[in-house]
């Protein structure tokens, strides 16, 4: 029993190192933070939403029905605060402007003679108009209220009057997107189609960065363990050449992996573009990716991969051996996972400014959202992303070269003068205590 305890204790000491425990804690904190953010987003999506009602009918019966359904959906909501009723006619851009003015993501337009039509066994016109906002999975849930109210009313009318056909004609429903109206589709349907296509991007970027990062850091760990790095650094070649060679090889590998995934994804998206998802043909509503867009996507990917490799080479410099290199892949994984989850679930536009700033600083955010930005014509964010990535990548490469010229690569961080002084100061303080 003693031997078993001894062996178990020794194994635990090796397995539960400060770095492995820290890595688990970081992942736990990360998931807790994401859960909290998701919960906030869900709550916000489920809260009462502002609604604009445009009444083209001479009778107010439809308005009172809408208010009644809204009140049933949100029993605690003050209707006067959330529902704005205006008399028609109001359509097109004027309608959108008014919606923006009252802060409503959706509007219900009651057609002329609606009350008299439905009470005379004729179909009445009532349709929804939505303003699309690219806000991740939950970004447009709130706007569903208009469609939901119309569906409820339709069902109630059909039941009351014993109809088998719809009592309400919603044919003019449309979503305002990219400065134009997409007829017959809801933001949720657009989200579903866009997500089906774009959700793969953050995932692919994350996989490529973590995979390539792991390869580079492990390779550095191996070089240190075998002391091949020491030999290499005494060859008659400039350190810049060594760094560039390593970065280039890993960058090409990353690009080949990334391109392979992208080709697979292009085939997947082409399938989607030619058909429809959720009843929405993205090409019909102008949400397409052309050849130039693909070039921009590849530029962002390559720059992000180079930036990741630079970070990994810096991290790898601190690896003592292959084993310690494994734990050093954690920071790069976390840096890739945070934007992946946030972009996938919350989107960029729905985020508070501080979180947007944090995500902007993380270089891997940009290729993860570039496809969506290109689709929705947010070119400022695309070009700003490229510029930031270029500056970040150059800075990281320069830092890598500087590191390769320093002693840290050979002695490790523990012999760095600053670290030695800090250790000395800390141990001095402890002794004094």
């Amino acid at each position, binding site marked *: 029993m003693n031997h078993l305890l001894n062996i178990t204790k020794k194994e635990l000491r090796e397995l539960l190192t400060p770095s492995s425990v820290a890595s688990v804690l970081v992942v736990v904190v990360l998931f807790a933070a994401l859960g909290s953010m998701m919960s906030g987003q869900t709550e916000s999506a489920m809260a009462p939403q502002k609604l604009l009602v445009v009444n083209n009918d001479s009778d107010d019966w439809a308005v009172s029905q809408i208010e009644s359904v809204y009140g049933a959906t949100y029993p605690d909501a003050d209707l006067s605060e959330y529902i704005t009723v205006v008399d028609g006619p109001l359509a097109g851009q004027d309608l959108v402007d008014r919606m923006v003015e009252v802060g409503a993501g959706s509007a219900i337009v009651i057609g002329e003679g609606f009350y008299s039509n439905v009470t005379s066994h004729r179909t009445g016109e009532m349709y929804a108009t939505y303003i699309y906002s690219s806000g991740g999975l939950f970004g447009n849930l709130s706007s569903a209220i208009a469609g939901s109210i119309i569906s409820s009313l339709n069902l109630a009318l059909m039941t009351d009057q014993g109809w088998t056909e719809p009592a309400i004609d919603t044919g003019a429903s449309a979503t305002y997107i990219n400065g134009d109206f997409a007829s017959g589709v809801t933001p949720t349907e657009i989200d579903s189609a866009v997500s089906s296509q774009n959700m793969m991007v953050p995932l692919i970027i994350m996989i490529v960065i973590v995979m390539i990062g792991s390869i580079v850091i492990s390779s550095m760990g191996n070089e240190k*363990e*075998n*002391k*091949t790095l*020491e030999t290499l650094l005494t060859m008659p070649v400039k350190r810049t050449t060594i760094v560039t060679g390593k970065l280039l090889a890993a960058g090409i590998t990353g690009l080949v992996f990334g391109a392979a995934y992208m080709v697979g994804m292009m085939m997947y998206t082409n399938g989607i573009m030619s058909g429809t998802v959720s009843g929405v043909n993205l090409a019909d509503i102008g949400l397409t990716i052309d050849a130039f867009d693909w070039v921009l996507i590849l530029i962002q990917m390559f720059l992000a991969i180079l930036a990741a490799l630079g970070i990994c080479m810096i991290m790898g410099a601190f690896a003592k051996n292959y084993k310690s290199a494994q734990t050093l892949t954690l920071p790069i994984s976390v840096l890739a996972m945070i934007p992946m989850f946030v972009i996938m679930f919350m989107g960029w536009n729905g985020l508070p400014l501080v979180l947007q700033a944090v995500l902007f600083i993380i270089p891997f955010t940009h290729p993860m959202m570039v496809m969506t930005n290109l689709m929705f014509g947010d070119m400022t964010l695309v070009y700003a992303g490229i510029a930031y990535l270029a500056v970040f990548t150059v800075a990281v490469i320069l830092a890598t070269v500087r590191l390769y010229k320093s002693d840290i690569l050979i002695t490790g961080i523990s012999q760095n003068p600053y670290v030695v*002084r800090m250790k000395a100061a800390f141990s001095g303080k402890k002794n004094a205590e």
Partner: protein
Amino acid sequence: MTDALTVADVRKVYGDREAVRGISFSVREGEIFGLIGPNGAGKSTTLRMISTLLRISSGTITVCGYDVATESDSVRSVISYLPEDAGAYKDLTGRQYLRFMAGFFADGEELEAMVDRAIGFADLGDRIDSKVDTYSKGMMRRLLIARAMMPSPKLAILDEVTSGLDVVNAYEIREIIRDIARHGVTVLLSSHNMSEVELLCERVAMIDGGRIVQMGTPEELKRRFDAPNLEEVFIRAVREAEGLV
């Protein structure tokens, strides 16, 4: 005879800790010079500073007339450094490894001639085409020495070159080092194995605690301390330096 290596009052400081405390020595062309001392004495740090791997905190090192601090590229073109317990790229064969390393010094026919010479030097027979991760420690050391000698360096810097080898392999490596020196290559080696150094080196410097405590030929040192071997010399020299004698 001119000096291939001059080390003058060199220090290496990490924070408040001095790993090397103002050491000075020179090595003549074609000489086999040994740095001996216990683990942690500062031997490897000194070799790494000479090899341009570590920065010098103060003092100067000159290799074949080139200043290590300011002309590191030129220094690297005339030295070959073999770290302690060094390995090679495991996914390459011995021949591929030599060809990769030769690529830093030559190309075309010159490169092929360099590789052929190194293969002859390593004397690994058919195993030169096996992956290096299948090599024994002795075979690996032969390959690495062949790599170090391949570009015909002016100064070979060998750190604990026979460490961990069996008697036969260690003997063969020592013979190779003697052969290298006979061909005009200056050899600077470090070891904590005093008897090996006594067998191999024309002159030695004894390092302890980052300082050179004695320097001379093995015979001179033994006479100076009236000791039967360098091990005894080292013990007495350290005690003398510490004021214990």
